């Protein structure tokens, strides 16, 4: 029997050796793959055992995101708290266990958890891990100004829409507000309450970078850029406005633009922008063609995701949209209606951030700066490991064109459709927009502006949704004025 006993013993040992092999497989070969799986709660716990970096406003003092320590199951975990509540929600986003992450909490997760590839960070994180002490992430200091952010959000109270304010010469974003805002502290346990729509507007959408709106007459700035920069028109180019424009043999009436219902007769391109006369731009569009207008739009950044540090799925590109997707026509001459495109109709959909970039490029003498939200990244020991440097995306137009547009846009605020944005003692340049929504006399009110006109320090873009019979000049311009006034104070 001894032979069989030995054989059975070998079988028993082989079974146990198989267990050693199996354990080795899971702990060495497969463990990286398992660690990355979404449903791996251990990964989540590991994530929460990191003391995430704090997020500060531009003053370096106002805390936008910090941590609360809790002992759970014998481990110290850190949960996020957002001391400013809804004020910065659309930029900062949230980091929770059940809802994952959004905003900078998502896109800068690596820096905030100290897992970025920066040498200094790698050294500290590795040391912390070896010592078994808590890993601390890097802190972010944003460009957003708390006072400006608060003024913009207050001005938007009860309205749906967005405000973007930036420094046109550097690209630093000073305010980025989407209204209604949500309280990120409620996301974890009171998600329904946080996501509860105000009227018809859901608060979780970042309207400043994700909201797609018809630009209406604010797009005339883009058309005017194309008209002047190609040399085909000057501000003094004469037009005759009979109250309509003939397109494809049919009348397109100015009445479509409630800002300029009457016929102006003999005008120039300058007064066409000042009073936002649709027929003038309709004729400009027919003369230079849809292709040229779209090319200039692309120079302003249309058809690309606007560059910003928030997650790419929280930004959308501006441009023509067909059946819900971005439409870049191969043959614009036959596929796009140039007249309607020229005054901001057709199938145009733009974001408030994109329109702020349009205003900025004009303000900055024709050079478009890359917008940014993060001023610097600071290690837990206080060392600055990255600082933002202003970066020019490119020249959109000649300096002369920008100067001509600048004075035309000043005229809008001085005696045109945007007088509500006038600030005593400061020259403001702007452009109104009142876009049809397709529903009765409900409009989307727009205003884009910059100030001071001769030496711009701030450029803004304001959009307010669903305004019954409301013009951009009456509804959006006063909000833009408040924000600019506060920024220049």
């Amino acid at each position, binding site marked *: *029997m*001894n*032979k*069989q*006993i*030995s*054989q*059975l*013993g070998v*079988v*028993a*040992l082989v*079974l*146990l*050796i*198989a*267990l*050693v092999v*199996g*354990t*080795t*497989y*899971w*702990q*060495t070969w*497969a*463990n990286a793959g*398992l*660690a990355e*799986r979404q*449903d*791996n*709660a*251990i*990964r*989540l*716990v*590991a994530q*929460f055992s990191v003391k995430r970096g704090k997020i500060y406003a531009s003053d370096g003092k106002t805390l936008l995101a910090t941590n609360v320590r809790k002992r*759970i*199951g*014998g*481990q110290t*975990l850190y949960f996020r708290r957002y001391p400013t509540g809804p004020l910065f929600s659309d930029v900062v986003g949230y980091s929770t*266990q059940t809802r994952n992450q959004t905003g900078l909490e998502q896109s800068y997760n690596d820096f905030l958890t100290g897992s970025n590839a920066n040498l200094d960070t790698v050294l500290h994180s590795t040391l912390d891990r070896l010592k*078994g002490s808590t890993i601390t992430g890097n802190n972010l200091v944003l460009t957003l100004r708390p006072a400006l952010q608060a003024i913009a959000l207050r001005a938007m109270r009860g309205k749906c829409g967005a405000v973007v304010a930036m420094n046109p010469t550097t690209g630093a974003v000073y305010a980025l507000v989407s209204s209604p805002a949500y309280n990120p502290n409620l996301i974890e346990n009171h998600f329904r309450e946080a996501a509860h729509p105000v009227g018809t507007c859901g608060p979780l959408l970042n309207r400043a970078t994700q909201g797609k709106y018809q630009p209406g007459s604010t797009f005339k700035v883009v058309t005017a850029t194309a008209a002047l920069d190609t040399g085909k028109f000057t501000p003094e180019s004469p037009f005759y406005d009979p109250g309509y424009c003939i397109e494809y043999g049919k009348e397109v009436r100015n009445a479509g633009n409630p800002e300029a219902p009457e016929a102006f007769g003999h005008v120039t391109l300058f007064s066409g922008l000042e009073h936002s006369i649709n027929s003038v731009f309709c004729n400009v569009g027919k003369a230079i063609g849809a292709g040229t207008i779209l090319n200039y739009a692309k120079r302003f950044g249309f058809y690309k995701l606007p560059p910003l540090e928030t997650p790419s799925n929280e930004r959308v590109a501006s441009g023509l949209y067909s059946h819900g997707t971005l439409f870049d026509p191969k043959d614009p001459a036959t596929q796009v209606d140039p007249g309607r495109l020229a005054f901001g109709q057709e199938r145009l959909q733009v974001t408030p951030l994109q329109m702020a970039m349009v205003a900025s490029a004009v303000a900055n003498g024709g050079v478009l700066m890359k917008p940014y939200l993060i001023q610097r990244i600071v290690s837990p020991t206080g060392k600055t490991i990255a600082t933002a440097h202003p970066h020019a995306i490119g020249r959109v137009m000649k300096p002369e064109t920008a100067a001509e547009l600048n004075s035309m846009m000043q005229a809008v605020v001085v005696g045109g459709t945007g007088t509500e944005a006038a600030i005593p003692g400061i020259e403001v340049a702007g452009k109104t927009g009142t876009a049809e929504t397709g529903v009765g006399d409900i409009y989307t009110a727009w205003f884009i502006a910059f100030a001071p006109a001769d030496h711009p320090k701030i450029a803004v873009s304001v959009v307010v949704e669903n305004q019954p019979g409301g013009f951009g000049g009456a509804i959006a311009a006063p909000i833009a004025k408040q924000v600019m006034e506060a920024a220049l104070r």
Partner: protein
Amino acid sequence: MLTAIGFASVYIARQSTVSTGSLTYAGIFFGLYLVAHVVVRRTVPYADPYLLPIAGLLTAVGVTEIYRLSPSDAFKQGIWVIVAVALFAVTLFLLRYDYRRLESYKYLFGVTAVGLLVVPILPVVGQTVNGARLWVHVGGLQFQPGELAKIMLIVFLAGYLREKREVLAQGRPKDFGPLLVIWGMAMLVLLETRDLGGGLLYFGIFLGMLYVATARRMFVVVGIVLFVVGAIGVWKITPHVQERVTIWRHPWTSHEVYCPIAPNHLSLRQNCQSYQLVKSLYSIANGGYLGSGLGRGTVTTVGGQALIPYANTDFIYSVVAQELGLVGAAALLLVYMVFVLRGVRIALLAQDGFSKLLAIGLTFGFALQTFIIVGGILRIIPLTGITLPFVSYGGSSVLANFLLLAGLLLVSNRANRELLR
């Protein structure tokens, strides 16, 4: 000593101080070990010197991890260990002169074993836990009779096969009768209790012992074929077993599938049926080479709920593997191997057929049970709920394991005594 260190490190990790509580626990445990040692020295002085320390070590690892998961469970487990050591002492004392008396009661053992296996199926006392009827509920006590039945079955088989081995070895067709009967019964038990792991264990022990007794590979081949056929048959008609196989083959799905736990609700399989297996694999993988350290592993979710259901019974290995890492888990398995090697050595040295069969039966059962549960956790075979010998939480399991240890010590004592003579 090991428990003291283990408890202390869990305590340090949990409370950042060594408290007297951990040392009290360790003191009691060490005292208990000393008692067992003295009993062994007195009753079976010639017995293998490795087995008791190994059992003590495994029990210590188990109690430490159970304590780490739930201090109140560790207290209950401690009580069970005391009861088990008492039973162990009584067994050694009663059978210290000649355990072979058991052989004459083999049919009593056989019938009792079958009876114990059938008890959970009975309506009043039986209880279904996780789809398998393995539990007996009497008064306030829960008991899993299968664990004791296993030991009794081995005693019965050792006696029966010793008596019939020559006849069976001839391999005449009519001698396949008992084999078929036992196969049928294993299948029946498997079908009725829906306990795939138990069925596999009992039948595996039977085949192993049959082979040792008869030296005929034919039996093993036929037995395996019959088992596979039977298992496929059971698989076809039992949704519970089908589910286990599905979980084993595809624990993760990328699209939502039917979830039997919440009818009319689709869900990813890793969030439904294979939740436990998948969470356990994450736990093991998280251990890496060196582990997180005792008491420092992640056993709860961010919300504080237990990460792996039944972590302290069937899934204790995944917690051990996480906290002690590959080094610790491999060391633990090595300890199991040493136990098996000593068991095989005892079977080789034993002088008579009954002793040899008893020793190898107990040893092989021990190894196979370890393989079935850890192999299930590691996705080598479909997962079935069964305890990890000496380590898992559970009264019946602790009792059965100490009886198994007593059996091996008795055989070893006699064999060594004969050799010295």
